């Protein structure tokens, strides 16, 4: 609601600015090169009189993943022609295609509901950079009302190094006194770290194999046990296998 109010205020401010600009341009109209008499590039009297036209539509971008076989063939051709830069690009595109497919397969394997929350398919995301820095990330959101459960899978990512530091550093072991905001737990036999923050809720991080990590985030979950019960509904072994981890 606040967002809508803000948008309305911005639109009103823009309209006021447009009117002032129109008045100013109308006074100097004879000195400009074109588009000052109400028939600018966008056409008709509804378009802006002084600036670029506003976009009214387009086909967007092609969202199909790169064709893996096609790109491998391009890489082979470029390599034989000693064009290493093009070969590299083609291999990166092929890797991108494969990673996106891995991501889509994992999303398909996830349950439709978790802890009574339904998946929000519009927020399903698979991201790949085509190289090993940030690697492959997959996200699925389950939501009902103000309760939300988010699952993020990060493969070939540097994130898991931070979590492994938690698990191997005794300084991050459970404390006996004071507010406990993080601790080590186990989920389906995997060592993990659970954190809690009053503003962001629960976060459970599970390193998988050598280069992957699973992160569960729970907003408005009543207790740690509720959060763990939700996370236990995910087939962690299946995800690990899909990522090729041991």
């Amino acid at each position, binding site marked *: 609601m606040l967002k809508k109010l803000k948008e309305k205020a911005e639109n009103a401010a823009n309209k006021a600015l447009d009117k002032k600009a129109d008045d100013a341009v109308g006074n100097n109209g004879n000195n400009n090169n074109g588009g000052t008499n109400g028939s600018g590039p966008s056409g008709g009297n509804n378009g802006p009189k002084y600036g670029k036209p506003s976009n009214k539509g387009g086909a967007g971008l092609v969202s199909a993943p790169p064709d893996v076989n096609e790109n491998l063939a391009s890489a082979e051709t470029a*390599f034989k022609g000693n064009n290493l830069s093009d070969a*590299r690009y083609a*291999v990166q595109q092929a*890797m991108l295609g494969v990673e996106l497919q891995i991501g889509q397969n994992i999303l398909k394997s996830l349950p439709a509901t978790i802890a009574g929350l339904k998946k929000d398919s519009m927020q399903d995301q698979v991201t790949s950079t085509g190289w090993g*820095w940030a690697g492959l990330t997959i996200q699925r959101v389950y939501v009902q009302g103000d309760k939300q459960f988010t699952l993020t899978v990060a493969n070939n990512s*540097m994130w898991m190094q931070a979590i492994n530091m938690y698990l191997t550093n005794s300084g991050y072991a459970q404390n006996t006194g004071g507010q406990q905001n993080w601790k080590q737990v186990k989920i389906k036999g995997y060592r993990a770290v659970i954190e809690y923050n009053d503003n962001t809720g629960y976060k459970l991080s599970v390193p998988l194999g050598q280069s992957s990590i699973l992160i569960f985030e729970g907003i408005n979950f009543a207790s740690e046990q509720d959060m763990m019960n939700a996370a236990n509904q995910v087939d962690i072994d299946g995800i690990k296998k899909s990522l090729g981890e041991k």
Partner: protein
Amino acid sequence: MKKIYFVSLALFSVVMVSAQDFTKRLSEARTSYAAGKLDDSRFAMQQMLQELDILTGKEVLKLLPQKMLDQSVRAGQDNVSGASGFVGVLIHREYGGKAAYDSTAIQLDIISNSPLIGTINALLSLPFGMGSNPDQKIVKVNGYKALLSKTSGSNDKPEFELQLPLNNSLITLKAPGRSQDDILKAANTLPVSDIAKLTQ
């Protein structure tokens, strides 16, 4: 002369082996993909990228000058290594004397395909940022913008380091004991546009 011949032969052999490795990995990638083993296919492609980066590194070494200022290349120190996609491929060359270790050798490092390079590019694109650090200035090397930094030497004598970013590759030149003018003169012997074409 004989030494150069054997070093070239060794280098050529490595290049041939790498080419075969690339073809082998390509075949593995195709076979695994066709069998639905996506992770194996991806692993093979990562190996292919690694091979390409090593081959590119060796091609870059061939482009570099044999002499810089008054120093000859220390061929035994040439190196191409790294982990593509994580910290990039490191190409290293030195120019200096014949001793096993030469503290005054000119050192040239090129990190290619590294995601860590973005910060230098950001510094170079700031119109006002340079004024706040008196030890840094933007210079041009063969038409490319670079960052020249003053660093402390071993006897508190100022030394200079030049960093030239090319999208996601970075050329770093260090010349211990040399002046600003010397390091710029050395940098201008680099075929930057040819290196850019190979590493982009």
